[in-house]
Every structure is written in structure tokens, then in C-alpha cells.
């Protein structure tokens, strides 16, 4: 696996004071008697990777699914490009440019890479599948993401390694003019080399100006790629700011106790968390 390409150092396309692509304000969500999210605020910026951390049951998945249109918040408002939006389904999310890569990837093993990337959105020509055009588009997307380790984009997904599958799933998500990509535990099942390539892929998404949210248990990965870090603790957003304001120790404390050094998180500069 050749991984020589490097993201420009300190890439932070969103200039100071840039408006977030997605703003969550006061999101509440409960399932029956169980409250999963309490008034969660979160900003996601274009060209930035936000690492969402939290222990099991902290509400990471619920929050992700709320943005992805699977769950609907009981209270609160989601703003997309400053417009209030109601995301009622995965289709609504896609229409806005929000794509989610779930942990189980949702790829059909028996279909090839192109077929998987276009599943449900096949292009037709005279009523029949337009394989050539889809193949070209898929190849182009994969090459701009520099996913070049696959032998042929016509090989079945069953023959791919875990990292390659993750790459295909990510490429599938970004092919549709997406503006925000949500990645659920993208490196959980991967080896060292494959993790490396997926992290590089995430950086390339950021460099293309996409907003990326990575949900991860692995703090190494988070600190490797994240420009911002957000920590959920028992359904509350206990910390949210530039990655530079955190270290491993503090994130672990926020995740396990909701505070660091006994004190709640204080944004260092402005209220919005921008430095």
C-alpha cells in the first residue's frame, strides 16, 4: 500500500468566523422513558473534521442518526447552511448532501465496486443500465480520493480487504455532491496499515472542503485527523472545541466523568469555540 500523499499541513479551509455548515441547537431525543440526548449543541464546519467521542451509551449513535435522518429530534433545531431543516429520512439527508457511512458499511458482497457505489441510484440509458458512464464516474471518484489499491473497480466487494471496503463505502458517500459525511467507527475493524489509509482518506475529504464527522472510540485516530473534538457524556455535550485545546487525558476524563480535572469544559476563546 503506497501512502505518500500528504494533506497540506494545518489545513483549515474554513477561515476564522466562517459559518458552520450544520448547526445543532438544543437537540433533545428520548426513547420512551430513556432520555438519550439533552439539549445538544454542535457545529460542523466545511473543510474540517470533527471527532465525536463518548463512552458506550453516551448518545453518539443517536446523535449521528438524528443528523442522518433516521431519528427525529423531540426538541431543538437543525440548521443547514443557516436554514432550519427537518431531516425526516435518509433521502432528505441525501438531498441536503449529508451521507452516512455506517459501521457495517452496507455493501453487497456479490456486487462489484461500481455496482455498490451506484446502488439505488443507477444511471440508465434507453431504459437499460448505463454501465460505462457509471464505471467512469466511479473510477473518477476513486482516483480523486486516491483509492488506487483496488485491482479493478469491477471486482466484487467480497474480494476486497477491510480497508478497501471502507474506502469504497466512503467513496460511495462522497460521490453525490455531498457536503457532510458522517463516519461511524471507520477504523474499528481495521489493521494498522488499513487504518492509516482510511485516515488519509478522511484527510483528503477535508481537503476537498467537505465537513466530516468521525465517531470513534480510538483517541489516536481522533487526534490524528480531527480539527475539532466534541465529547458526549450521558447524552450531554460536555466539551466541544478545537482539537488543540484537548489532549488524550482530558478527553478521557470528559468521556468518563463529564469534566476534566474536576472542572467542566470552558471554551478558551469565543463562545462558538473558534480560536
Amino acid at each position, binding site marked *: 500500500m503506497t501512502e505518500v500523499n500528504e494533506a497540506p499541513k494545518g489545513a483549515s479551509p474554513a477561515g476564522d468566523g466562517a459559518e458552520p455548515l450544520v448547526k445543532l441547537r438544543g437537540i433533545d431525543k428520548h426513547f420512551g422513558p430513556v432520555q438519550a440526548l439533552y439539549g445538544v449543541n454542535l457545529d460542523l464546519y466545511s473543510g474540517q473534521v470533527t471527532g465525536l467521542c463518548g463512552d458506550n451509551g453516551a448518545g453518539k449513535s443517536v446523535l449521528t442518526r438524528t443528523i442522518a435522518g433516521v431519528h427525529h429530534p423531540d426538541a431543538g433545531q437543525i440548521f443547514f447552511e443557516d436554514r432550519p431543516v427537518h431531516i425526516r429520512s435518509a433521502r432528505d439527508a441525501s438531498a441536503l448532501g449529508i451521507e452516512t457511512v455506517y459501521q457495517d458499511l452496507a455493501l*453487497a458482497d456479490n456486487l462489484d465496486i461500481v455496482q455498490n457505489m451506484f446502488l439505488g441510484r443507477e444511471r440508465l440509458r434507453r431504459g437499460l443500465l448505463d454501465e460505462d458512464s457509471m464505471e467512469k464516474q466511479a473510477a473518477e471518484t476513486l*482516483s480523486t480520493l486516491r483509492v488506487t489499491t483496488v485491482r479493478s473497480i*469491477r471486482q466484487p466487494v467480497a474480494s476486497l480487504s477491510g480497508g478497501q471496503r471502507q474506502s469504497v463505502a466512503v467513496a460511495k458517500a462522497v460521490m453525490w455532491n455531498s457536503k457532510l459525511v458522517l463516519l461511524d467507527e471507520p477504523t474499528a475493524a481495521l489493521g494498522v496499515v488499513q487504518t492509516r489509509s482510511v485516515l488519509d482518506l478522511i484527510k483528503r475529504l477535508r481537503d*476537498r472542503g467537505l465537513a466530516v464527522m468521525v465517531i470513534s472510540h480510538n483517541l489516536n485516530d481522533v487526534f490524528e485527523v480531527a480539527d475539532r473534538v466534541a465529547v458526549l457524556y450521558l447524552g450531554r455535550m460536555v466539551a466541544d472545541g478545537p482539537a488543540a485545546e484537548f489532549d488524550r487525558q482530558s478527553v478521557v476524563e470528559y468521556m468518563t466523568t463529564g469534566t476534566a480535572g474536576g472542572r467542566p469544559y470552558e471554551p478558551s476563546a469565543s463562545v462558538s469555540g473558534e480560536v
Partner: protein
Amino acid sequence: MSADSGEKPSGTAGAGTTDLTLDAKVAAADIPPALVAQSLGQYLRAWLVRLRTGNSGVLPVVLAIVIVAVVFEVITPEHAFLRPSNLVYIFGLSTVYMVLAMAETPILLLAEVDLSTGAVALIGGVIGFKLVQQGPGPNWPWWLAILAALVICGVIGALQGALVALLRIPSFVVTLAGFLLFSGILIVILGGADSSVNLNTAVPNQNFIYEMVQGNITPIVSWIILVVVVVAVGSTMVLRTTTRRREGLVAPPLGLTAIKIALVAIIGAGVVIICSVNRGSSLRVVDGVPWVIPIVLVLVGLWTLVLQRTRYGRYIYAIGGNPEAARRAGVSLPAIRIWSFALSSATAALGGILLGSFFYGEYSTNTADPGQLVLYSIAAAVIGGVSLFGGRGKAIHGVLGGLLIGGIAYGVSLLNLGSLSTPLEYILPGGVLLAAVAIDVLSRRGAGSVTGV
């Protein structure tokens, strides 16, 4: 959301094309299909690797057909198996298995099973035969009668499919009930256990259905049709290859296309030559390609087109591979499942009509046992290479599997084994089916292996 053009690439527009050729160079020869190979040698190597990983395609069943043909030719008295008259008869005998195996294919691709195929096929056949009857029958034109049989059976399939798709009752149970139910209804519409329905070959309208299997195309017309088919298939393949190459996509080497076209021509010519031999006597000449061969070919072509080149077909494979992925992609699983059961049963109805034609236009309760019919058909599909676990297989696999089953059945009957003959007609296909399923399971395991980063 419509499939509009995706992200603007950060590179140039040419990036896609250059990348692919680069890819193919890196690719040496591995699991991917012919598409990575730029030369015949590369193709062969890629193909061998594919074989070893279990993606053997039609090879095992073609090999099995060759072995069966050679073995029966050697052991049958007077070495009669490969006589032209017998070969044509075997095709006619196999027709119902081929068509029913094709009907079973989309169901198996969905990782479901349809046990009612045999009974539904017989119902379709009897309905078709009844509707062209004069006197007590309505004397419908043949095409309307066939269409009615297809539609009625399609509705039967849709109903069973709805139970499977909407209530999620296992298809095994739904269609087992359907099998029993329709086996009974079959006797009712036939008019009782001892009844039969016959085609009157003196009536042109009824004779048309009789001729579907029994009638022949004259040798000269056969040759003309063959030339037209080879030219059409050949030019389509060449056009497709050259288009892909011009668009900068990896295309199979032209040599390979030439070999494929030559194979089609050789096999076609072989069939026409065999069928052009006089199968009758010196007094009454019987020669020419039976109509049923082009009928089966058109059916294969249609199912191949539907499965490989339409969204509906793609979704069948997707559901068979990973229903959750299909659902998240916005595919309506119930719609695809119901349509598949409907189209499958309609195809089966055509198989039933061809079966009656093969039996010289007579349908009785002795014509065929719906249970044996469906088991042979599922066996044919699986032997041909359709996976029992869903997501893998093509229409052509059912045809080859059906031919193998028919060949074995007829070969055994040629052996004059007396009381041994019937048991062998079950035992041999059983053994072949077991071998086919073993290959299926092993290839699934092989395909699951990871090729490294």
C-alpha cells in the same frame, strides 16, 4: 434524488481514464474478471486464478455435460446416445427443466425458494391447452391462450410473493403450501384424475402450440437464422468492446471477443448440422432445428437482459447479497420480491406449455409429477451454477443445468436396465446435485477470502 453528475474532481477530467489504465497495469492477474486483462495471456491467467478461488462460472456444468455425453455414448448399447435423433430428443426432454430452472433463478438469487414452480407450470400448461380447445373450450387464438396462461400464473406467483414479501413468511413454507394447493387444483381444472386434454393437430390454431416443440425449421432457414444471429451477436460484442476502449475503460482483448464469436458460430453450426440430419425414415423425412431451440434462446436472452442490464435485475442481486444494503439504498424490497415471484411463475407457465407440446400435445395427470418437476428444476438451476444462498447465478446456468439433467435422465433410459432404470434416474441427478451444492458452498468460502491490501 436523481443520479446527477457527482463531485467535481480536484484533478483533471482525464484523471479517471489514466487512473484505470494504471490500475490495470498494477493488476497483473487476480480475482477480477476478464475486465482487467489486456491480452489473451493475461485473460487466461486471470481466469485460472478465478477458477481456483471458486468463481468457476459455467465451467463445471459444461464439463459435466461433456463427461455425461462421453460416458453414455460409450456405455449405451450400439453407442446411441449421441445420435442426432437422440440429441434433438434430449433437448426437447430437457426443455421443461431448462425453462423451470430459469424461472427458479431469480427466486434463488433473492435467497428464496419456490417449491410450487412445477405445479404452477402444469397449471399454466393445462390452462393454455384448455383455452385453445374447440367445442367445450373457448377456442381462443394460440397467442391469447398462452398470454392468459402466463398472466394467470403470474398472478398466482404475485400472490405467493406477497405472502413472502409483506408478511415475511418463509418462502419455503408459502410455496410448499402452494405446491400442494396447486397440485390439487391442477386435477380439478384438468377435469378429474383420469382426464386429459389434447391438441388437435388438424386445427392450425392448436397445431401451432403442438409445433412449438415438435415442429422444425427447415435446414435452409435454420442456416439463415444462424448467420443472422451470429452477425448480430458478433457486431454487438465488437461494438461494445470498441466503445469501452474508446471511452478509456478497460475492455476485454479483441482476440477474446473473436474467440467468443467463433465459439457461438461453431456451436450454432454444430446444432444446425446435427438437426439437419434426417431423424425420420427414408419415407418420411424429419429434419431441421426444432422451434423450441430458438424459443429457449430468446427466453435466455430476455432473462439475461432483465437480470444483467436493468435496475430491477440489479436490485435482485443486491437483495440476494445484502438485503440491508439494498434497503438503505432505497430499494423497495417487497416490490422486487413480488415481481420476481410473478415473473418466475409466468416463465414456469411457458415451461408447462412447452412440456405439453413435448408430450405430443397431450396433458393428463400422468404427464408429469409436479413434485419431481420442481425438484429437478431447482437441482438444474443449482447444478448449472446458481447459488442456493442468493446473489449469484445467471439465466444461462439454468439452461445448462437443465440440459445436464435431461441428458442423464435420457441416458439412463437408453441403458435398458429394467427395474434399475427408475432408481438411477433419481440417484444420478441426486449425486450431481450434491456435487453442485458442494461446489457452491466451497466457492462461497473461497470468495470470502481476502486478497490483502
